[in-house]
């Protein structure tokens, strides 16, 4: 696999992860499903995994960047699995509405597994690591778009989580935006 093909796949992968984070935001802001603490932790893990792709786009492909992806996705899969197990027994309820038959945390687990498999497959392409010429300082449009979208969603999660949980830990079943309640003294719910 050539370095250019690897960069294209990395950019597309980062856009895919950014779209997952965007869908989570749409679910939160449009449909009013506030994320639980484990849901927020899964968002973090998607960002931890996407971080490796971002480093690949900026510094060029390196095995260590794929290592970051695998570690982040493994942590995310463990968090998602914990949430699946919490609700796996029939009658123990679920968090949120299912989409295409699966709950968001189950989809998360599937996507974390796909990230791990994808990273392993990318690691098989040795030629991408043999780049001799330095990377251009200026990013091409697609990697620049992917990185900008990803960074915007990371910053969006900082603001959203701060508004939702304030400076402490998030409640297990959030009912509104705690920081806004503290600041404005009213119960602001989606």
């Amino acid at each position: 696999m050539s370095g250019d093909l690897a960069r294209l796949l990395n950019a597309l992968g980062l856009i895919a992860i950014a779209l997952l984070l965007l869908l989570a935001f749409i679910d939160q802001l449009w449909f009013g499903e506030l994320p639980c603490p484990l849901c927020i932790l899964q968002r973090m893990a998607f960002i931890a995994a996407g971080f490796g792709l971002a480093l690949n786009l900026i510094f060029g492909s390196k095995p260590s960047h794929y290592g970051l992806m695998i570690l982040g996705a493994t942590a995310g899969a463990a968090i998602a699995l914990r949430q699946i197990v919490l609700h796996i027994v029939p009658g123990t309820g679920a968090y949120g509405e299912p989409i295409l038959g699966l709950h968001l945390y189950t989809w998360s687990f599937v996507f974390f597994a796909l990230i791990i498999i994808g990273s392993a497959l990318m690691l098989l392409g040795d030629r991408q690591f043999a780049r001799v010429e330095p990377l251009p300082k200026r990013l091409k449009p697609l990697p620049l778009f992917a990185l900008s979208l990803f960074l915007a969603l990371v910053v969006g999660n900082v603001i959203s989580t701060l508004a939702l949980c304030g400076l402490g830990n998030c409640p297990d079943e959030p009912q509104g935006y705690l920081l806004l309640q503290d600041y404005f003294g009213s119960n602001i719910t989606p």
Partner: protein
Amino acid sequence: MMSLPFLLFACGLGAAWLRQRAVAMGFWAAGVVVMLVLFRIHASSVVNIAL
């Protein structure tokens, strides 16, 4: 507290954009450690299932 890992990842991406790879990876590692600590805090109850 829950927003701290996001903030660390954002700082890491900023460092990467400024071509500071080691700093970026340091922020990533700090973010993951805080994330795992938060997971430990939020996954404290025992789940009653037989595996």
